[in-house]
């Protein structure tokens, strides 16, 4: 109802709850040979969405194993602070003390789109990136009985019929919408966007024939594609995820647009480098932990690691890109 269908709500909460493993936590920890000044107590990670979304999932999966990799064996607790499409939680991380005990997860929306549209207090320049955790590309799907079998056929149609093709997405001003606006700007085709409140409603609108196509994350459309109900025409991301190997990337068909929905760890600005390094190391190892990989796979999510510098660049790149797209789509001045 009021709460948005989280765009990734299909993917549920994974892995061990803090409560489950906190009993083994600090008490079993072995202090390593060297004296590390960080961490000295449990850490809090703010997830800016309600429990049950991908961001929340990825966080819980990681935090369940990360205590094995943190010096001192301390735990990381997930705290959900949803609201404002991720802005409230992200702002809280931005305002937290820069001592590394309060960090956060963030995604494309709150980090690279919202700063333009909502006057947030933070931006990718002022936040301290730790690492990227997960990335998912978006795909354009149509129903199995649609007249277009390949991207090329579809492209011809939309070029010849501006303003006819309707497509649903998970929400206005989110990555899928922005990507398609960028696509329109690049190719000059006119499409009609019908925003819904989440991936599931967007897909069901397509299934019910209320729209001609849908642009959603790969994992949201996957069950239907597997069953043959939907067909993926093109991948708007930067890589091909599992199960979508034969769907062309936009960049492969001559359109210079590629953006994924990524999720990553951030810390408040001015957090000392040693702290970031410790966090980075531990979470990186957690990301490579077989349990985590297995969980992610079950959820259809692909871990995609990127270190602090790289992640920072990804954020800034999308931030600048989105600014242009938002301007040309008339969403901001």
């Amino acid at each position, binding site marked *: *109802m*009021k*709460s948005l*269908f989280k765009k990734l*709500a*299909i*993917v*549920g*909460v*994974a*892995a*061990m*709850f803090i409560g489950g493993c906190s009993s083994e936590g600090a008490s079993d920890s072995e202090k390593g040979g060297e004296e590390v000044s960080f961490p000295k107590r449990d850490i809090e990670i703010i997830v800016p969405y*309600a*429990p*049950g979304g991908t961001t929340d*999932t990825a966080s*819980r999966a990681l935090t*369940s194993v990360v205590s094995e990799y943190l010096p001192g064996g301390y735990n990381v607790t997930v*705290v*959900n*602070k*949803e*609201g*404002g*499409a991720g*802005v*409230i939680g992200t*702002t809280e991380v931005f305002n937290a003390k820069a001592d590394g005990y309060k960090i956060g997860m963030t995604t494309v929306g709150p980090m690279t789109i919202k700063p333009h*549209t*909502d006057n947030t207090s933070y931006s990718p320049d002022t936040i301290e990136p730790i690492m990227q955790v997960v990335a998912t590309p978006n795909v354009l799907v149509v129903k199995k009985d649609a007249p277009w079998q390949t991207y090329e056929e579809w492209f011809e149609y939309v070029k010849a019929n501006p303003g006819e093709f*309707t497509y649903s997405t998970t*929400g*206005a*001003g989110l990555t899928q919408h922005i990507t398609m606006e960028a696509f329109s700007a690049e190719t000059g085709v006119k499409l*009609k966007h*019908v*925003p*819904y*409140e989440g991936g*599931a*409603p967007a*897909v*069901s*609108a397509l*299934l019910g*024939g*209320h*729209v001609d196509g849908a642009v959603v994350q790969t994992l949201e459309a*996957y*069950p*239907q594609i*597997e*069953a*043959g*109900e939907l067909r993926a025409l093109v991948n708007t991301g930067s890589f091909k995820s599992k199960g979508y190997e034969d769907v062309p990337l936009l960049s492969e068909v001559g359109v210079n647009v590629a953006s994924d929905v990524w999720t990553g760890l951030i810390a408040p600005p001015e957090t000392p480098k040693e702290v970031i390094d410790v966090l980075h190391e531990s979470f990186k190892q957690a990301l490579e932990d077989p349990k985590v990989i297995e*969980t992610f796979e*079950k*959820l*259809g999510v692909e871990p995609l690691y990127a270190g602090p510098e790289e992640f920072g660049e990804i954020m800034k790149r999308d931030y600048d890109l989105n600014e242009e797209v938002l301007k040309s789509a008339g969403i901001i001045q």
Partner: protein
Amino acid sequence: MIEAFAQVFELQTLLLVFLGVFLGVLFSAIPGLTATMGIALLIPYTFSLPQVPALGMLLGIYIGGMYGGAITAILIRTPGTPSAAATLLDGYPMAAKGQAGKALNFATIASFVGGIISCVILILVAPQLASFGLKFGPAEFFALAVFGLSIVGTISGKHAIKGMVIAALGLLIATVGMDPIGGVPRFTFGSINLTSGVSFIPALIGLFAVSQVIKEVEEKVKGSQQKKIKFQRERISLKEHFSYWKDYLRSSLIGTFIGIIPGTGTSIATFLSYNESKRFAKKERKKEYGTGIPEGVIASESSNNAVTGGALVPLLTLGIPGDVVTAVILGGLMIQGVTPGPLLFQNNGTLVNSLFITLIIANIFMLLIGLFAVRFVGKIVDVPKNILLPIVVTLCFIGSYSLSNNLFDVWIALVFGVIGFLLEKFNYPLAPLILGIILGPIIESNLRRTVIESSGDLSVLFTRPISGIFLTIAIVSFVFPLLKSLWNRFKGNEEEDDSSLSA
């Protein structure tokens, strides 16, 4: 099939299902905690469990969660979850009349019946029904929501125009936040907290519970004398239950139907069911709705549990969750390696059968827990008001906070409490406000989507059969009683039927 039975009837599974139902009832009874939260918190534990017990527990929470809210709705006029919002319309008046036990009893049985009927429908005709649910596009959702709004006359008791003002106010409150189509922040006055709108559950808690507490304080409720409602253990004969069979059936069907349509919530089902129950009642009975009659409780509780079976239809057959709770369940399913969708019945046939059986068992557990709990829980009414009220109000505040760990929500509860109190002081009905807040987003977003999709052609709303029907009925049920009572008002007629106005 035999295998399915074997999977379900082992100790671990049964225990976990029972635990799930119990937790579901508990969580949904406490205002501020919801079944969704319970499921989300418990999913991590299910990871280490085998499929059937894990899913059984989640389903148990879901089913129990639809019932628990009724307990607090009836006893302290606080719906523990939004799905019990309509239960307080007649549930609380029954408790006020000393019939709390009876009301709880009806709530339990109604929940059970609703759950079972929707399970049966789910088991028998799931795939066919799913495609029906998909036919609901923006036009239909809009029409359905407007139809839901038209029942405002029913729930306003005697004050129809005031009810409409309140409903409109609810619609307006729902516009606060980012608009659903453009993402443009509206009426946020610079507050980040308001960008996601007025949090619904804290508003609900504040409006009904906190305002009630203020009211009782203001009316000088002292100690244990004055209006102490004795809790009576009342047994209701099976025969009496059967006499209401039409209400049970109708409400269960409405609930299942609404559940099948992805994107509608339980609250809509309960209000619609309440309305239809009143519409089909005998004339003299109609006036009694809202004063505390079993039909009201039955209507609300059967429909909200019937939604469980219905909502599982699109979830299992299409992989599309119908509401937030099923969305979290979907996650739980995927963790277990089960991908709901068109292939589910082929790939995991036995599992699906086990799930069906589990559902029925969960409903039975809920019935047992409910009947058993009624004895203890009803005693709460015996606690002297001057101790009970402070605790209730505290729970309201803490509960509001625990939803999103946000203090702002507590302020919302407080503010709505004061608003609710003042409104009631001036004889304004509160229920339409909830209706407005729930339906507002649905009405607006779908109206705008219809416009986008049809390129501005609004006649679509009437040319498409489903939406046309709903809209026509809505308009008629809306306009007709209003005109009638206005006419009578001007003529100075005092005695009028259910929707008369009052100064």
